[in-house]
């Protein structure tokens, strides 16, 4: 049996991940976060008479605080297990990755631990986020002036 045949055997014998089901779960979970966010924004705008832009800033703050807190008490990873990537892709996932790295590397020192590792997972989101934002703005300027 050569390597190619073996790879086929492994593929055949490993259970298939329920990709469609995971995607639907993630869609619903992520969608609910969006829905709850929208409700919070409406409440902030109407009950606290905030401007739309301020309400969204407050919303980001609330969602990040929630995800960070749930990570700190050790519950967020259990929710992710159920909600699949629905909670990893939105801001909640970003906050979670920073917080979980911070907890993990706290014991390795302030500089060599937290400082060096806190963006271990979130670093790629930041760098590629900035690069894609740059190109999107460039495109906008070229197309619409």
């Amino acid at each position, binding site marked *: 049996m050569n390597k190619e045949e*073996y*790879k086929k055997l492994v593929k055949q014998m490993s259970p298939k*991940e329920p990709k469609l089901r995971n995607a639907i779960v993630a869609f619903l979970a992520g969608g609910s976060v969006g829905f709850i966010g929208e409700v919070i924004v409406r409440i902030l705008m109407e009950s606290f008479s905030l401007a739309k832009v301020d309400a969204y800033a407050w919303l980001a703050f609330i969602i990040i605080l929630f995800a960070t807190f749930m990570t700190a008490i050790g519950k*967020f990873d*259990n929710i992710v297990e159920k909600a699949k990537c629905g909670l990893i892709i939105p801001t909640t996932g970003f906050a979670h990755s920073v917080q979980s790295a911070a907890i*993990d590397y706290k014991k390795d020192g302030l500089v060599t631990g937290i400082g060096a590792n806190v963006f271990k997972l979130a670093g790629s989101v930041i760098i590629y986020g900035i690069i894609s934002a740059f190109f999107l703005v460039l495109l906008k300027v070229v197309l619409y002036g």
Partner: protein
Amino acid sequence: MASFKFNNIYLNDWLTLMGPLESNSKLKKIDLKMDDYYFGEKTFEKAEAKMQKVVIEKILEKNKLNYNNIDLIVGGDLLDQISATSYACKEMPTSFLGIYSACATFPESLIIGSMFLNDKNIKKVLGITSSHNLSAERQFRYPVEYGVPKPHTSTFTTTAGISTILSKDEGKIKIESATVGKITEMGIKDANNLGAVMAPAAARTLYEHLEDLKRDVDYYDLILTGDLGCIGGSIFKEYLNRKYAIKLKKHLDAGCELYLKSQETYSGGSGPACLPLVLFNKIIASKKYKKILIIGTGALHSKTFVNQKSPIPAIAHAVSLEVI
């Protein structure tokens, strides 16, 4: 060829210390257990070193021995530079050999220990190994609290510390023969499917063991593979049948025999401590088997090489045990 028979080498005693999940699993017997993953220490790495220290101290105490009675310590673990073992043994006035072959460390320690015992100056060898779910998780995967959906083929690192005493004095288990495996790589790059990475190495070692010693697979009452997991275990059997035409009936995989389904450990347990934990606290405790061939399987997995898109090499060492 690297198979050999041993004369009068015995596994006199063993001691296991297991984590909270393992003490509520399919195991039949509990020696020592810990209630949380910190084990009174500040970090998981220090906890793992302490686990090893405790199993060494307790096994010496149980056998009324002290460090001067031990001529050599042979052991290793999963952490970088096998640091849990080095830290566990740093205060012990005993000669020390650190070894690494990932989850095949336990049979490797038996083989090296038995070889040393052939020398008349070496009377007693102490073997140790450990793995800790959260220190392994930190090192090989993601931060402990980071949640990420895992595929069904992934395995769960066992938390346990194991110590063994080997000598020429007749004891509970005879170390009858062994085969040192060869590094095998079949092009699998998926670090979430280590069972598939290790299965060909296990099959190769089993085949060579049987060929070298001119034995039939039915010679053994049980073939116990290390930590292929439930999925890896079935790939192993299929591969063995297709490549070497060996039909395996009396086979169990330690990874698959450890956790309950409700414990959600995907394909099963893994880690250097998985095989000895199941061997001692389930297989031997059940008193059903006499001739057991253990095949420890190690994925020689490096994060750097995996990121550089290299396939993962694997190793498997086999040791034949006879329960007296």
